[in-house]
């Protein structure tokens, strides 16, 4: 089966070029903090500052109470559990989209697998926000918020699926961006719409029926919402749904990679 072979070869590329992938990813991460005095400390400061901001705005100012939230869990916890996975996804797609274009010097002068640029951009975002998420969870836990720690195991399923989804978009848009520079502009608009089309600030339960039906076409709904529910200890995981989304992501990844590889020989002409 050609599709299966495609996936295997993606893994082969990753394994054979693991040194390069690691170097590119580390450089990407390092890139954000070089030149700053705080260095990697910012990686910890940023999520905590954001968390504090949300706490002040939503708890102290708005005093938001989500109606369907059981156990009396505060809104700040509710947001935090969905926001970091979203930030990882969103930033990964944005960075992946410009990855090839920004490494034009490399593409023009060195022969290597261009897909690694996309992978490293996405991986570095997930690594940074993964650490941020861990810090936030830890702080929330220490502060006595009621986190369902066993739910962490569900991340083993949800994070790879979210990663695959980010890779799909990054591969498609990253290849397109080389030819059509408008992609990047359009993407930031689309992302802000997508933010509200995903249950981050609200649970799906309060979305009116007709809108919820439409929102279910957004694959992120099937990752972000159950991920948060697992960490809140609400409901049980729908294995069939997770498996379905995972399979869909794998298939979409194969298609996106084929698209990317089809265009990648011509990157050098355009960057």
């Amino acid at each position, binding site marked *: 089966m050609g599709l299966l072979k495609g996936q295997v070869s993606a893994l082969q590329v990753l394994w054979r070029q693991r040194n390069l992938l690691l*170097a590119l990813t580390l450089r990407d991460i390092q*890139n954000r903090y070089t030149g700053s005095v705080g260095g990697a400390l910012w990686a910890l400061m940023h999520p905590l500052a954001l968390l504090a901001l949300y706490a002040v705005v939503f708890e102290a100012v708005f005093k938001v109470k989500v109606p369907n939230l059981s156990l009396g869990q505060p809104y700040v916890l509710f947001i935090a559990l969905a926001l970091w996975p979203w930030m990882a996804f969103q930033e990964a797609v944005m960075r992946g989209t410009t990855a090839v274009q920004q490494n034009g010097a490399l593409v023009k*002068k060195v022969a290597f697998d261009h897909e690694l640029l996309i992978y490293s951009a996405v991986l570095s975002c997930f690594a940074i926000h993964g650490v941020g998420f861990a810090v936030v969870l830890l702080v929330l836990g220490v502060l006595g918020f009621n986190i369902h720690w066993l739910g962490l195991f569900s991340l083993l399923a949800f994070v790879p699926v979210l990663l695959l989804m980010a890779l799909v978009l990054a591969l498609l848009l990253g290849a397109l961006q080389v*030819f059509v*520079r408008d992609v990047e502009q359009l993407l930031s608009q689309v992302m802000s719409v997508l933010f509200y089309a995903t249950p981050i600030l609200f649970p799906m339960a309060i979305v009116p029926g007709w809108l919820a039906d439409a929102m279910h076409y957004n694959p992120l709904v099937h990752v972000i919402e159950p991920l948060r529910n697992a960490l809140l200890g609400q409901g049980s995981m729908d294995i069939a749904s997770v498996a379905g989304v995972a399979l869909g992501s794998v298939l979409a990844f194969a298609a996106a990679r084929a*698209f990317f590889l089809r*265009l990648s020989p011509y990157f050098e002409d355009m960057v």
Partner: protein
Amino acid sequence: MSATPLIQLSGVGKSYPLVQKGGHQLAQVWSRLRGTEPSHVFKALQDISFDVYKGQSVGLVGVNGAGKSTLLKLIAGVVKPTTGRLERRGRIGALLELGAGFHPDYTGRDNVFLACALMGLSRAETQTRIESILAFADIGEHIDQPIKHYSSGMVVRLGFAVATSVVPDVLITDEVLAVGDESFQKKCIAWMENFLMQGGTLLLCSHSMYHIQKLCQRAVWIDQGRMVMQGDAAEVSRSYLAWHDAKAAHVTQQNHLEKLKNSAHYQIKSWSVNGSSDQTLLTLDMGQALNIQGLVYSPDGRRPQVSVGLLRSDGIAIYGVVSEMDGYALQQNKDGLFEFRIEFMHLQLLPGKYHLRAHAMDPEGLRLFDQVECVVNVTGASRELGFCRLAHQWS
């Protein structure tokens, strides 16, 4: 020479899409996805065919924009050919343009690690090589400064050091020698000569015919994306230079190849050494005089220059002089040829075999055109060391 070439090009061509206004980019993506060529293209290279075998060194010559760099990129694998077939075997190390793939914002050290990773090295493997890379590049403590603060010479040095840290089967370099200073050029040339001696294969692009002739056995001349000539490096570079001069002088370019073969460049028509024009092997006693005379042809009637020199049999120069340095003017004879005579009085070379060489040069004394050579066997008895006697006195 092994049977299968390391690099094989047959009918290779490369087209670049021309930039157009409006929504053509989307049309281009669509045509790429369908596997068709865009409608407006610039043909950077057309119908290039040649083979490179293990142990060969091949130089690419041509004017700016002829397509040399594109060809090197094709062979390096950075660019895929639009037409034709290109096969590559073995590990190919490429140094394309200034500091291949260095990122200006990162430090030299960071760039070295990434460049090594691009060559497939792990961090640990790079770690073991970094000392020798830094030693070769010789940029001292600047290594921890961002590349953007480097001089172009430093970037090239670092690039060359990295590209050669893993000895490739084929090394591709594009004009690197032009940027480095004299001592670095020497280091590079020494490295390349050693690399060639160990059976390495070299592809070099240079505007310096001196480098082409010194380092390459074969050369390929490219003009306007097409191959004009390929063959022996000295022959190709001579033809290229002559063509280049003809072009500069606005001489009609028709049939220039045919003309080149005959007489369109400065050349030594005949010469004799110590009265003998049979230069197979010349014997003289140490301390004897060496008399050289010859006739030089000048295609444009301007007064050419001549250089004469002696080399050791391993190619190391002992002494060379150009007529222009001494203010010597060649005399035109009645046939329109220019005559020169030079005498080395009391030749103080120690016994052994030497090469005597003479070149015809352009009137400016800048370029070597022709080369004639003979072997001089100096006889005599001496226990002195080295290869030439320096005037001395014990007291």
